[in-house]
């Protein structure tokens, strides 16, 4: 119960008028950057980071993490209403959230998204509170083979459990993997596929690709179909909120499963992106009615949002305990910690108790305040959508361009973003799913590095992926998931042979 006492102490640090005010300001700013398409978490936090330099570390991290929570909540608004994911991990939210909005259920979808974000984060914070010391030592068990096994698991679950035609998923993923090869190769220290261009040295930034693939291509499609933005208006009334909450217990399995996946992948740094997709795919796989997914099913919003937020929150633990940032935003927060002279590491929990527990307490408070705030302000933020398309489309393109430029201050990225817009448009037309492409762009180079480091370490033997219980079970699970449709069928046949009456 030591943790409980420390947590109370953390609340004590936080509960001052000034801190609460900072928290509200942070949340509003966060929602704002989250709603602006193409800005999203990492950019928002990066742009607003200098605001906090003059504060003391606890106030600063509280404000920053509230900007982060706000951006996460805000990202859900654009995913559902605009079909533009603010962050890569909101991609899975668009699958069902946007169809729901199309069917006039935007308010339900938004309530579902906010509520499940809240539940996911809460589970992860509870976990952080009570498992902090143990988990940081577990994370140390992850070497290159373990990392690769987790990435493999993500890729395989995509192919095996995905809704789209398998060959299209694989084509999309392979193209993404090819693009991650561009730039400096960490293992050999050589440049690959840059063709002498200094702009390609950096490689393809996945945020640039995502902004183009989702944001710009959506604008192109909209222009082609009709000059009306396919975003949807929403105002959330108390009745809708209570209606959704009343149904929550029905989905407890999905919520628990997604929270678990999220926490697991957040701590074993698989990341929120993998978590959201896995949460979604598993919810669909275990559903009685998998075909209704992708057509506006509320479970399809619950599953990825819960997993993404559980994972996004849980990822702060390895960042604090080991200094490994699990996501782009966590990396920026990490940079912030250093500015205030706090070195993340196992000793942070010992030497800066006030700070660590203040931060953990702020996770609780920030999420509660954030939930209330988004539910009450959605109409204001969503009113952006009542502006005619002709006026808002250029604004979206401009904010996409600013977003793409701001990531690395490179004009080249704007051209790249436009190019990806066209690519996204073509993919959508010929029915190639964009999500595996994005996933490969995000995890591809990390998976490659982990694989090659494993091979150097083992002297080229593949046995290293079964060299201990942890890595062995993850690898086996990955391969099982890859062939899941076949296994599922085989099991079905066996069952029929065993007991013909069942079918």
């Amino acid at each position, binding site marked *: 119960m030591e943790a409980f006492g420390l947590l109370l102490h953390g609340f004590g640090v936080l509960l001052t008028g000034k801190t609460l005010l900072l928290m509200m300001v942070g949340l509003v700013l966060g929602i704002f950057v989250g709603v602006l398409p193409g800005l999203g978490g990492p950019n928002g936090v990066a742009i607003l980071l200098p605001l906090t330099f003059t504060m003391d570390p606890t106030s600063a991290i509280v404000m920053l993490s509230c900007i982060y929570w706000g951006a996460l909540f805000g990202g859900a608004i654009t995913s559902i209403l605009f079909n533009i994911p603010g962050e890569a991990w909101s991609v899975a939210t668009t699958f069902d959230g946007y169809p729901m909005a199309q069917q006039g259920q935007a308010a339900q979808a938004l309530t579902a998204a906010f509520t499940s974000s809240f539940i996911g984060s809460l589970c992860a914070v509870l976990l952080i509170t009570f498992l902090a010391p143990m988990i940081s030592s577990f994370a140390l068990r992850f*070497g290159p083979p373990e990392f690769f096994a987790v990435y493999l698991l993500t890729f395989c679950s995509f192919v095996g459990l995905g809704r789209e035609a398998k060959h299209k998923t694989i084509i999309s993923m392979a193209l993404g993997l090819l693009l991650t090869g561009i730039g400096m190769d960490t293992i050999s220290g050589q*440049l690959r596929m840059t063709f002498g261009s200094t702009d390609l040295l950096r490689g393809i930034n996945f945020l640039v690709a995502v902004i183009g693939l989702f944001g710009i291509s959506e604008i192109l499609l909209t222009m082609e179909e009709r000059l009306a933005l396919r975003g949807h208006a929403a105002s959330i009334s108390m009745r809708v909120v209570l209606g959704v909450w009343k149904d929550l217990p029905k989905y407890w399995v999905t919520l628990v499963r997604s929270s678990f996946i999220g926490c697991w992948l957040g701590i074993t740094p698989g990341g929120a992106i993998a978590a959201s997709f896995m949460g979604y795919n598993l919810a669909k796989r275990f559903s009685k009615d998998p075909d209704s997914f992708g057509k506006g099913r509320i479970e399809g919003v619950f599953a990825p949002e819960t997993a993404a937020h559980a994972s996004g929150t849980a990822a702060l633990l390895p960042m604090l305990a*080991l200094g490994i940032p699990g996501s782009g935003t966590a990396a920026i927060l990490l940079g912030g910690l250093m500015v205030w002279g706090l070195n993340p590491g196992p000793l942070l929990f010992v030497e800066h108790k006030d700070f660590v527990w203040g931060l953990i307490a702020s996770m609780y408070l920030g999420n509660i305040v954030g939930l209330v705030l988004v539910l009450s302000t959605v109409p204001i933020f969503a009113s952006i959508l009542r502006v005619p398309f002709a006026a808002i489309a250029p604004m979206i393109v401009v904010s996409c361009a600013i977003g793409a430029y701001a990531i*690395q201050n490179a004009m080249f990225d704007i051209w790249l973003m436009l190019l990806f817009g066209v690519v996204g448009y073509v993919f959508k037309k010929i029915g190639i799913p964009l999500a595996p492409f994005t996933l490969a762009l995000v995890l591809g180079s990390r998976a490659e590095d982990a694989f090659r480091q494993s091979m150097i370490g083992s002297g080229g033997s593949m046995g290293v992926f079964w060299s201990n219980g942890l890595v062995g079970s993850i690898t086996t699970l990955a391969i099982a998931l890859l062939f899941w449709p076949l296994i599922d069928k085989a099991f079905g046949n066996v069952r029929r042979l065993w007991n013909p009456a069942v079918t």
Partner: protein
Amino acid sequence: MRNLITAAGAAALLLTAVPAKAWEPTKPVEIVVAAGAGGASDQMARMIQAAIQKHNLMKQPMVVSLKGGASGAEALIYMKSSQGDPNKVLIAYSLIYMLPLSAKIPFNWRELTPVSVIAMDQFVLWDNASGPKTVKDFIAAAKASSVPFKMGGTGSKREDNVLTVFMEKKTGAKFAYLPYKSGGEAATQLVGKHTESNVNNPSENLEVWRAGQVNALCVFDSERIDYKTKVTATQSWNDVPTCKEEGLDVQYLMLRAMFLPGKVTPEQTAFYVDLFKKVSQTPEYKEYMEKQALKPVWFEGKDMVEFLEQDDKLNTQLMTEAGFVAK
């Protein structure tokens, strides 16, 4: 405490001594880091930023800009293409010599304007706390092992990799070198026993050393580190023997230096020389140098160019001997 006051006083004096007409930045100054968040360069940039802000050494704010893409090549190209822009300053390390050699990056440090060398960074041989406690035992264990010992490090064909090759040459032991994206990652992997050792800079392994998770075996310098304050429960940096003392004759120090883009005016360069000189006299800088076990040095102007030429020659020679120069 007295030191602190004197240093602050000296800084204040220097500040008032600046003639009114000298050049000053008119825009926020970008301090360009050629590495990822949390690495040694990033930490140093943040320290400089904090020191400048706290002592009000410059009217314009300073922002840290991370350009660690392509193993830091991104920052080099960025500086090269910012010719004539006096609002960007690069915090450089040995990659300015090595990257053009190993990856044929179209870059030459002579195209930038040298401002000052502000420190030399050490390299230390580390192993896991459960591993051998001395260099001799460590080398013996590496030689006896049936699979090569794994050595973690930052990037490929760079400082850490070069040191590993020279350790192999001097001892005859074989290592499997695992390139990671950052020193922080190499540190964590060593603690998790996924590698047997690494050659991180002191700052990169400081926290895990203090937590008692790694052993500091030896430092790759001709003399021991000066700092005698206890860092861990029992050891100070000064207690770490040199590798040469321990029979492993390999030495390497890495520069930490500031550069402006090419074609800036002498007045602009002078402003920054003066600025970093003042930074180097702040208590923040001194505390940082001691905490991270950096060697305080100062070169500017002609001395610096001379130093760079020599250092370049040395690095080129090491890279050539290690076989890391691209054809």
